[in-house]
């Protein structure tokens, strides 16, 4: 395997402004870093969305497109001047095309410590079955 370990030192990537129509809110929108894994029964998605809580997250599955969005309420400190910044605060948006059928009613999502995790159970019909080969 080429990269088994991913470097931690990566900057947040922004959603380019030219991607489709403009947003009504004048806020920076970031592309959350994700890990997507699969096993025989489920597809697992983990997205880093620091600053977002469970109420601000919006997950939609329309046709084959899974969209994850999160609104982040930036904190401002009165009586303090921001003297140094290494990261920007903004919303998150990312969409994926799923090329399999999933049990839509059984999709589970949770938000913990700024990480969104989604478990998408595969539909019975598409679960892989191993087909035994009979000796002739």
């Amino acid at each position, binding site marked *: 395997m080429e*990269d088994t*370990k*991913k*470097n*931690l*030192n*990566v*900057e*947040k*990537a922004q*959603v*380019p*402004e*030219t991607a489709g129509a403009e947003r009504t809110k004048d806020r920076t929108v970031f*592309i959350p*870093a*994700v*890990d*997507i*894994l*699969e*096993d*025989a029964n489920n*597809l*697992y998605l*983990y997205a*880093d*969305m*620091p*600053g*977002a*809580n469970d109420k601000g997250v919006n997950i939609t599955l329309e046709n084959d497109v899974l969209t994850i969005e999160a609104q982040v309420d930036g*904190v401002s*400190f009165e*009586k*303090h*001047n*921001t*003297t*140094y*910044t*290494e*990261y920007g605060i903004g919303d998150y948006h990312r969409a994926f095309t799923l090329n399999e059928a999933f049990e839509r009613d059984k999709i589970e999502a949770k*938000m*913990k*410590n*700024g*990480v969104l995790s989604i478990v998408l159970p595969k539909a019975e019909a598409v679960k892989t079955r191993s087909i035994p080969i009979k000796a002739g």
Partner: protein
Amino acid sequence: MITIERPSWRWDPWKEMDRMQREVSSIFTLPRPRRVASFPPLNIHSGDEDVIITSEIPGIDPADVDLTVTGDTLTIKGTRKPHEVKEGLTWHRRERGSGDFFRTVQLPYAVDAGKVQADYVNGVLKIVLPRAEADKPRKITVKPAS
């Protein structure tokens, strides 16, 4: 003012050039490769009484973070654990990093280490570092000559 109306069916070299320019410039606005930065990224907010440092460290156990303050230096140390790789799991994408992190920050003034407070909410670590009493500026009144 003279306006020249071009019939819409006619091939327009200017429009064509516009279109080509848009096409070329769109190549440069595609998502850029992620820049390498220090982890965890820090924002520093300074006030008269204290310094607030916020840091985005999603998906860690707060118990895995080690904060130490000595004089005017803050050290953040910790680990972000990788996924448990179970049998039968295959990767589609792997963008989230894992591993140990370590950062040292020089603060604008000496800090009262006993009063430092930190919390971790929604993946954001917030550290409030009050200025040491001995380090605070003192107002000196000038006495008039008697």
